[in-house]
């Protein structure tokens, strides 16, 4: 076995894992916040994420076609695109909740889940339909912003691109913002109160429906931001891109303890790292018999193992006993 190689690629893999982890963490927040409030898996969250990616690519493409992409400072472009993705995805999430989930809030548990799956499939094809009519293509490539492709060489074998740094910084900023929002503000208190006990919260004068909408808005916005960052990082998107990242982000949410906001962040990071290491090392360790193509299986196995042996997750003291 080539130990030098194994150790040599370690920092690069670590970096990739962290990057992936932040991406999962951002998406996982949407799952975990909704689950915290409604005890319901928002299966359509992966499409909320994809919408963010598509809004981002549309804005960048139209800037490019007007020749403005190189002229506006890239930081402004970036902030604008992320904000637009957040707004679009947040509004979509709120709409979905109103149309497809709210009428089913008191139905048996599996009914809203099936509805959510339906919404997810519907949205995939709606995005495809709109892009097919509008652009005559639904596999889109993010236009490159020159600065983002610059790389810093740390050593000979390890380098980090500007866009990776941008993704990490943006993700950190948003996670921090969410943390403040949930823990330090009145709105955050209301969200936590509704998650704890809807009836009691409503007796305290909290408008439960509004808080639930707000939860979808915030979770959706995080998903939208993740979509834009995903597009910037991996550049190729299509309407079905969201499925696998969505599933993994859900795994991350369960891993961290579903319903738990810091848990989602931790779970995202852990899963991202595990997956990056599995993808890089599995092939080396098994002599090429099993390689990176099994990294998806790896994530699902983590999900199954966690659910069997520690269903409340790593930080999961928050799971309440309504189940």
């Amino acid at each position, binding site marked *: 076995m080539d130990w030098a190689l194994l150790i040599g690629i370690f920092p690069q893999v670590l970096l990739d894992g962290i990057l992936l982890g932040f991406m999962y963490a951002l998406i996982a927040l949407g799952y975990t916040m909704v689950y915290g409030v409604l005890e319901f898996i928002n299966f359509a969250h992966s499409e909320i994420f994809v919408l963010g990616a598509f809004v981002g690519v549309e804005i960048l493409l139209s800037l490019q076609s007007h020749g403005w992409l190189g002229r506006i400072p890239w930081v402004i472009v970036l902030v604008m695109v992320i904000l637009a993705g957040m707004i679009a995805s947040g509004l979509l999430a709120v709409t979905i909740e109103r149309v*497809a989930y709210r009428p089913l809030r008191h139905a048996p548990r599996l009914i809203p889940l099936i509805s959510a799956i339906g919404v997810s499939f519907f949205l995939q094809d709606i995005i495809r339909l709109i892009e097919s009519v509008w652009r005559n293509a*639904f596999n889109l490539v993010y236009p490159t912003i020159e600065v983002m492709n610059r790389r810093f060489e740390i050593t000979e074998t390890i380098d980090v691109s500007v866009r990776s740094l941008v993704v990490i910084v943006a993700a950190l900023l948003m996670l921090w913002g969410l943390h403040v929002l949930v823990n330090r503000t009145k709105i955050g208190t209301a969200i936590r109160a509704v998650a704890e006990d809807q009836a009691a919260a409503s007796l305290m004068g909290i408008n439960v429906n509004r808080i639930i909408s707000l939860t979808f808005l915030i979770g959706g916005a995080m998903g939208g931001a993740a979509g834009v960052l995903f597009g910037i990082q991996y550049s190729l998107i299509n309407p079905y891109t969201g499925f696998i990242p969505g599933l993994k982000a859900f795994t991350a949410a369960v891993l961290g303890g579903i319903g738990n906001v810091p848990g989602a962040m931790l779970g995202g990071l852990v899963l991202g790292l595990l997956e990056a290491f599995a993808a890089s090392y599995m092939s080396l360790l098994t002599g090429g018999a099993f390689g990176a193509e099994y990294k998806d299986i790896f994530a699902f196995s983590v999900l199954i193992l966690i659910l069997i042996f520690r269903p409340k997750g790593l930080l999961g003291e928050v799971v309440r006993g309504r189940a």
Partner: protein
Amino acid sequence: MIQSVAAAAAVALSVILVTVFPRSILLFLLFQGSLLFVYVSRIPSWLRAALLGAGLLVLMPLVGAVNGYYLEVATQVGIFAALALGLNIVVGLAGLLDLGYVAFFAVGAYSWAIFGSPHANLIFGGTAFPLAPGWFFAFLVLGLAVAAMTGVLLGLPVLRLRGDYLAIVTLGFGEVIRVLANNLDKPINITNGPKGLTPIGRPPLPSWIPYNEGFYFLVLVIVVVVIVVNRRLEDSHIGRAWEAMREDEMAAQAMGVPLVRAKLMAFACGASFAGVMGVVFSAKQIFINPESFTFLESIGVLAMVILGGMGSIPGAVVGATVVTVLNLQVLKGFSLWLNELKNAGVTVLGYSLANLPTQLEPAKYERMVFGVILVLMMIFRPQGIFPARRRQRELAHPQPEPPSATS
């Protein structure tokens, strides 16, 4: 009396129309609709049985002789109806949402595909394979057993999970099976990866009828067997245990239902139907690859069950028919029609259809169909088109507090 005449007339008329205009999809839909009408109309049961029997045994092959594609559709409907009936046991009767159902279908399909094609020689060496076509019938049983075993193996660790977690885990399992099928071409080539397996042997059928007609009858026989088994199961001890479990696990357990065993049975039964149909499917297609066993297929079968009504046997059959026909005929027909209009350069409201984007292919929008079905049914008619009697009563009075689904 009027209904009897109307039903008989509808079937007869639609068959004549289909044979006269064999290329009209609308008329074929009319024919299928007339069979449905026969099923729901208030006519003497002997007449209903006679009309349905004539429709399925005589008229359908006749229509198939006029337009072979219709027979293909009917065969597909049969395969999916059996799949839907299998999933109906898991989702409808036992109330376990299985989102990876297609995995069991894949297990059955691959078990015949590997041994029924020359591929097995690569694994075992020699030239003993493909097995003689007659082995197909043995593999119906073998596929059943292997799929049921897979169901139990999956069920053992995960069945303690609560409903929504179980759904996600089965989804993950479905993906795992697909990824395995995609990648097990090394280190030992078992599945031949994304390239798939071909040619897969087809069962020997009597030579006095055309092969496709024969295959249609084979599928029909299997579907009838599946329906009979389903009905017997529904009224059996275990069927009642499943329904009790679906309604309230805690109460069922208190009444002495062994939860884990009942759930395992449900998983195994559902999986075994899928396994059998997998064997049939691979023989029908001659070629299979992992693309036939995606999450989309699982949701398609789920949409059939939901549309017809969870826990309802006629519902599952009707749901399978409607969804399959929508995908295979309505969407495709719409695509063809749109293309014809495009090529003819028709203009609508001053917009030339020739300018329509080329990527716009209505045939590709299966997901939208499934999605719309799932959402609309859940919001407006959760009991389905043909609700099961017990289910109907339950959903007519929604409880204020969701029944606790405990693990």
